[in-house]
């Protein structure tokens, strides 16, 4: 039981050395007996490529080798570089093993952990420079990042409350309840300038202020962990890698607004996150950090998890509250805002996981520290989930104001296969596309809105020249049509009509006046929908129309899909002079559409192949079979 600040500091001091050992750029000290820490990523990405089995095998082999006293194996949260998973890091060196398989484990234990020689062939190639082996912090992916919300992900064992305390965990809560008044807490948050990380970007301090100003009585603190944007997974990573940060922050919020109950609404699709968070809540209760008389004061706070059930609209705050109440997750009109009338009609604040993860740091290091990062109107850092056509898919945390080019080219490692950057999509189905001409835009809330996109929760999908922008708009529209809750007509009916027009265009039946119709309808939906889902649903259409109008026109006028995606608007063809006549493509074809011609190209032995366009189903199966000769093309 931790009953006062001194208890907490005692634990912190006992564990701080261990954490420092694994922290970026710190002195390479060893905490007595343990000489090496092996950190294995236990995030969802790496878990699905068997990192838990890797940990078990490694521990068994370490025991066999009799070095279990000298090596500690830790299953951590996400390191961020999911493209290289499963990832294994060995400290004190910070050696970075990537894409490790079960069969590699024995060699690593024998050579590296026992004999002290890192196994070069399994290391991430960027960290091997001749004889020198770089630490993960020297890689392009990590160098430019600034980790605040993700600071403990990939460092601590999320199952161990003491390791969190070792990073100054729960010290902010201790400071708040023993040294600060609720008004002082709110002022600190206001001064920091932090804005909601879940999408809208509303100043967090203002939200707290409104709720605190409501008459005393039952109030609630809610965490929005219903991360539904396809491609975004920062909230999941924080829940999996640093669950105590969320608990601490929610307790601080409770103290600030006068609430003693919290709800975390998490997607049921995140079993690892739910399990670790529940574990952390139980441990915090056991230690007296949740419950009555926290740090010996009369402040009490407790919290519980509610599982979402897969409805995108529940990321909208009022819909989320209706869902916690056990109903269909349909939004309510605002005002009244949740800060006045929220969960079960009581004043409620709702913040997103990433927002909460910043709070303890703001309290400990001060508003001025937080304020020093970022741009004029967007302070601090933001986590982005890089996905799509980018080399380093994964999670990155960057100061606001970093340019899109830096994120994609430097941190993200650029576009694979020598392709060109075409656009980046941010904000998921509510956002829009930033074209190559705006590659140097500094990322912050207001700049993204000015580009017709939005921050959203931080999904950043990179597209190369093979992506059709009309098809992309259609993809997002299909998503919103599917996820529209049906409560208000502009969203329920309007998005379906938008999708019909897009289908017409991608099928080759579009007319130029359809473009005007799209714009007109999109603007109606934006202005007349009840909640954020409907109000932003047309954004993918509007932003692709604004930036890639020529592609729409190509579909309508030339009946061509320039990227070769829309099946009705291209055919597969074989270049008769390039074709060697090997016939591999015909074997792949499920529709028997490929046959041999009588034509033998100059210098070739066999007659060339051809594709019968009337039989071809455009599955593309033939394409990879001709990698060597590149004779098959879309035209």
């Amino acid at each position: 039981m931790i009953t006062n600040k001194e208890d907490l500091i005692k634990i912190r001091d006992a564990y701080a050395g261990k954490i420092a050992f694994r922290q970026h750029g710190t002195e390479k000290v060893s905490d007595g007996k343990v000489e090496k820490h092996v950190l294995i990523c236990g995030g969802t990405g790496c878990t699905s490529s068997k990192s838990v089995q890797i940990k078990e095998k490694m521990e068994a082999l370490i025991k066999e080798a009799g070095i279990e006293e000298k090596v500690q194996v830790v299953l951590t949260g996400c390191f961020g570089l999911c493209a290289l998973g499963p990832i294994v890091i060995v400290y004190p060196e910070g050696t970075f093993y990537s894409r490790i398989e079960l069969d590699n484990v024995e060699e690593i234990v024998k050579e590296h952990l026992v004999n002290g020689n890192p196994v070069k062939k399994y290391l991430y190639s960027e960290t091997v420079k001749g004889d020198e082996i770089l630490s993960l912090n020297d890689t392009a992916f990590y160098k430019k990042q600034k980790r605040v919300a993700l600071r403990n992900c990939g460092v601590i064992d999320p199952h161990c409350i003491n390791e969190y305390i070792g990073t100054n965990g729960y010290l902010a809560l201790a400071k708040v309840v023993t040294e600060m008044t609720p008004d002082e807490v709110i002022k600190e948050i206001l001064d920091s300038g932090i804005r909601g990380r879940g999408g809208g970007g509303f100043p967090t301090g203002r939200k707290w202020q409104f709720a605190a100003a409501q008459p005393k009585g039952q109030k609630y603190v809610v965490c929005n962990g219903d991360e539904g944007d396809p491609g975004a997974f920062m909230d999941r990573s924080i829940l999996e890698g640093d669950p105590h940060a969320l608990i601490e922050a929610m307790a601080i919020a409770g103290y600030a607004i006068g609430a003693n109950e919290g709800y975390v609404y998490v997607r049921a699709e995140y079993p690892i996150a739910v399990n670790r968070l529940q574990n952390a809540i139980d441990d915090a209760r056991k230690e007296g950090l949740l419950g009555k008389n926290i740090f010996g004061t009369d402040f009490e706070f407790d919290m519980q998890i509610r599982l979402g059930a897969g409805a995108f609209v529940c990321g909208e705050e009022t819909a989320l509250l209706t869902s916690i109440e056990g109903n269909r997750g349909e939004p309510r009109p605002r005002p009244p805002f949740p800060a006045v009338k929220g969960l079960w009609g009581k004043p409620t604040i709702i913040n997103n996981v990433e927002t909460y993860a910043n709070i303890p740091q703001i309290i400990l290091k001060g508003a001025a520290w937080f304020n020093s990062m970022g741009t004029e109107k967007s302070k601090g850092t933001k986590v982005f989930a890089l996905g799509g056509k980018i080399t380093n898919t994964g999670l990155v945390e960057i100061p606001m104001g970093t340019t899109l080019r830096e994120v994609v080219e430097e941190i993200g490692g650029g576009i694979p296969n020598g392709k060109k950057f075409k656009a980046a999509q941010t904000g998921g189905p509510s956002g829009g596309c930033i074209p190559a001409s705006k590659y140097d835009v500094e990322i912050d809330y207001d700049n993204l809105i000015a580009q017709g996109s939005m921050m959203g929760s931080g999904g950043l999908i990179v597209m190369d020249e093979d992506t059709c922008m009309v098809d992309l708009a259609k993809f997002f529209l299909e998503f919103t049509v599917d996820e529209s809750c049906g409560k208000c007509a502009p969203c329920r009916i309007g998005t379906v009509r938008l999708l019909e027009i897009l289908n017409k265009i991608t099928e080759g039946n579009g007319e130029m006046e359809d473009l005007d119709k799209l714009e007109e309808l999109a603007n109606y939906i934006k202005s007349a929908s009840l909640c954020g889902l409907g109000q932003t649903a047309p954004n993918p259409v509007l932003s692709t129309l604004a930036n890639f109008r020529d592609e729409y026109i190509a579909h309508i006028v030339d009946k061509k899909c320039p990227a070769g995606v829309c099946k009705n608007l291209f055919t597969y063809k074989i270049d008769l002079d390039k074709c060697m006549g090997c016939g591999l493509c015909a074997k792949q074809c499920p529709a028997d559409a490929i046959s041999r011609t009588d034509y033998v190209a100059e210098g070739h032995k066999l007659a060339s192949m051809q594709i019968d366009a009337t039989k071809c189903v455009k599955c593309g199966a033939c394409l990879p079979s001709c990698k060597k000769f590149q004779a098959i093309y879309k035209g």
Partner: protein
Amino acid sequence: MKKKLTTVSFNGTKEQEIALDNVIAEHKDQPGALMAILQKAQGIYGYLPIEVQQHVALAMDIPLSEVYGVASFYSQFILNPKGDYAVSVCLGTACYVKGAGLLMDKLESILGIKNGEITADRKFSLDATRCIGACGLAPVLTVNEEVYGRLTPDMIAGIIAKYKD
């Protein structure tokens, strides 16, 4: 989202019913308990047939329409039984741009069923799923808990064959 009602007949056991009654008794008095009860009911039966929804409505003394309203609203709740091997193709953005749609086409032709359906022998069911967060492995599909990543359509037949017998 429109959901298809099941065409397979209900065959719940007495044990399942007792387990369900225990869940209802445990949660009944908590505010907003319906979702939690339906989640656990689905854990017991594997899906939420209308018979189970009726049972929940009666035991909680709320209209069936309310139960059905919640069950049909959330995509996690399935009104159709899953196959022994539930095949799910991730159609999240990252997987989509890396060709997950082609994986779905291939599965539909190999299994002879459409997205959202189950094979006659109840062995395989096929679904599209939203982002499972393994974007670094895109495109991915899952068979029950097993994740297959960095796929191309020509790898599908081999994966299905592993589960055929």
